[in-house]
């Protein structure tokens, strides 16, 4: 008879190896849909690799794609550590982007030294506000934040369309639902000539290092982990649980808001309703692949970005739908979940006689 038994502790090799293995298994499983679409999987993987690493431009595209995913991945990782289920990063991203174009596209014509920090701070604040509301509803009324943040995503998206056809619409935009461009001095500078990768990446990396340090070393990080592991015990130990939740809500929402700022002020230059192809939701997968560690988020974001950029390029070359990338991303989430089980439990054989005792 087989019995499931908790491991006394998870071997370190497993903590690191399981996410990598999950990602590889998900990539390997993509051979099935590739075959179903009539493509040669080996050739497809080759195209994907070339699409990501084949040129400096390709790598720059991958890093550009990874930038928002680092922000939203951090947003999910921090919140999930405290067991605050922020599934609303998609909406918070758009709140940040709206704040960025509201002040950045001509409302305030001030030097870049002031305008850019203002855009960043207001964008983060708007995203944070988007998470403080559901956290308040959770703490005060017991309303499950999973449902409220998910529903808020739809409300914010409709609000965005209203703004883009109203107050935020570009007067010179010929009636298209898009915002006026962010002023030049409000833009995050590009990192390389003629490449799209921009300073948002540096901001994201710095914040990942900061988050890693605060989570592991600071009193704040200790409280947050305590709340996540056992809220009742943390409360008993005198930790202000609600305060910790609001704190992490502000950080998580703020990080998601920065994803929007970075996409608008670093990449696109103006805001449309299709700014994000689901970066908020993909951030959840990034965080889970990273084992909720901020340093891991960077690596996971690079992987997921490679999948998207590689699949796009493979799709152009071979005519296979680029939804393949979404398949790989969702399968790697499911694989890493199962991997988490293997890390925590082991199967032991129990002889029938002994089991009966």
């Amino acid at each position, binding site marked *: 008879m087989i*019995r499931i038994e908790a491991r006394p502790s998870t071997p370190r090799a497993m903590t690191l190896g399981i996410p990598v293995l999950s990602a590889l298994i998900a990539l390997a499983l993509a051979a099935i849909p590739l075959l179903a679409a009539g493509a040669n999987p080996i050739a497809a993987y080759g195209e994907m690799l070339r699409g990501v690493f084949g040129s400096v431009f390709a790598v720059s595209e991958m890093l550009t794609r990874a930038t928002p995913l680092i922000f939203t991945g951090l947003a999910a990782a921090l919140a999930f550590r405290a067991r605050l289920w922020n599934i609303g990063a998609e909406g918070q991203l758009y709140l940040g982007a709206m704040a960025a174009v509201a002040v950045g596209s001509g409302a305030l014509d001030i030097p870049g030294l002031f305008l850019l920090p203002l855009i960043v701070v207001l964008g983060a604040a708007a995203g944070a506000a988007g998470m403080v509301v559901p956290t308040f509803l959770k703490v005060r009324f017991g*309303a499950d934040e999973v449902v409220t943040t998910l*529903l808020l995503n*739809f409300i914010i998206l409709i609000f965005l369309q209203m703004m883009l056809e109203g107050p935020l619409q570009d007067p010179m935009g010929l009636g298209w639902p898009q915002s006026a461009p962010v002023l030049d001095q409000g833009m995050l500078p590009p990192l390389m000539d003629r490449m799209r990768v921009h300073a948002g990446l540096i901001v994201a990396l710095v914040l990942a290092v900061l988050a890693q340090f605060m989570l592991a070393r600071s009193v704040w990080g200790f409280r947050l982990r305590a709340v996540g592991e056992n809220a009742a015990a943390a409360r008993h130990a005198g930790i202000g649980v609600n305060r910790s939740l609001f704190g992490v809500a502000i950080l998580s929402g703020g990080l998601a808001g920065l994803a929007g700022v970075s996409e608008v002020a670093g990449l696109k230059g103006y805001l449309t309703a299709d700014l994000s192809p689901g970066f908020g939701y993909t951030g959840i997968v990034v965080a889970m692949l990273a084992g909720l560690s901020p340093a891991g988020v960077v690596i996971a974001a690079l992987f997921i970005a490679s999948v998207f950029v590689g699949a796009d390029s493979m799709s152009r070359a071979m005519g296979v*739908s680029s939804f393949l990338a979404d398949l790989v991303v969702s399968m790697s989430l499911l694989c890493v979940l199962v991997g988490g089980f293997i890390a925590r439990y082991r199967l032991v054989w129990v002889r029938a006689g002994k089991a009966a005792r």
Partner: protein
Amino acid sequence: MMDLLNILLSESFWAASLRIATPLIFGVLGALICERAGVLNLGIEGIFVVGAMSGWMAVWLGAGLWGGVLVAALAGAFFGLLHAILTVPLGLSQHVSGLGITLFATSVSYFSYRTALPNVSSPPRIEPFQPLDVPILSDLPFLGPVLFQQTALTWLALLMVALVWYVMNRTALGVAIQAVGDNPDSVDAQGLSVYGLRMGAIVAGSALMALGGAFLTMSAFDAFFFGMVNGRGWVCIALVIFASWRPGKALLGALLFGAFDALQVRLQAEMGALVPGQIFLMVPYILSIIALVLTARSADYPRALLTPWFKGQR
């Protein structure tokens, strides 16, 4: 004010409310069965998508309308089984697994759609379910147009409310499902299989959810579009709390939601010149949040909801 009264008294308004409520009835019932057994199923949004896509595609490939309904239910059951394996014997996070199922089911649907129809800008249309014209009853004043000119899937939804109520409240199986969501140890002590009951409930609930999706492509519309589910699954997760996990109240919640949604469409038409139309589009989502806020504290959650159970561990 007169306009509002006119709307509320019109047959077409209530017919539309019931039509809008139909996918939600399936969805809330499905979520209710899963949660009564102790497992949150956030795969619902993706299962709606897969139900909508697979049912429609089966009909397009020539399976017939009821064949499409069957295919949708089976597809929903398949993704439900996946969620069941991850959350019941493996006891993994129900939140993360559910979101994973939603992402997976959605991408499977979108990839299959694009692979089957690579170069179409608009999807092929099918001949959807037609309103059932019940002789005599359809000619009744008011009730005739509201009730007796709905499609067969709306009737199936109403039938399911009665069936789920009956199973949950009047059969040993229903009692066992509720017990497994409240106190799995006691179910185990009686020699019943906790795993079997929970997994069975998730599979059955997910099949129902997929019918909600199938209604969209096979009755409300006649084709599949990206983004057509548009949060309806998440609304169901809010409504099931509003409904206190009871089938009758689930029907009421879905109907109320349908009525508000039908009302906002009509108000938008009347007042569209005064306020941006988007204000009205937000209403259903805001109402769902309000319903959740008002009922969350007093809600009688299944006691073992979200708690995994392992055999042989007390």
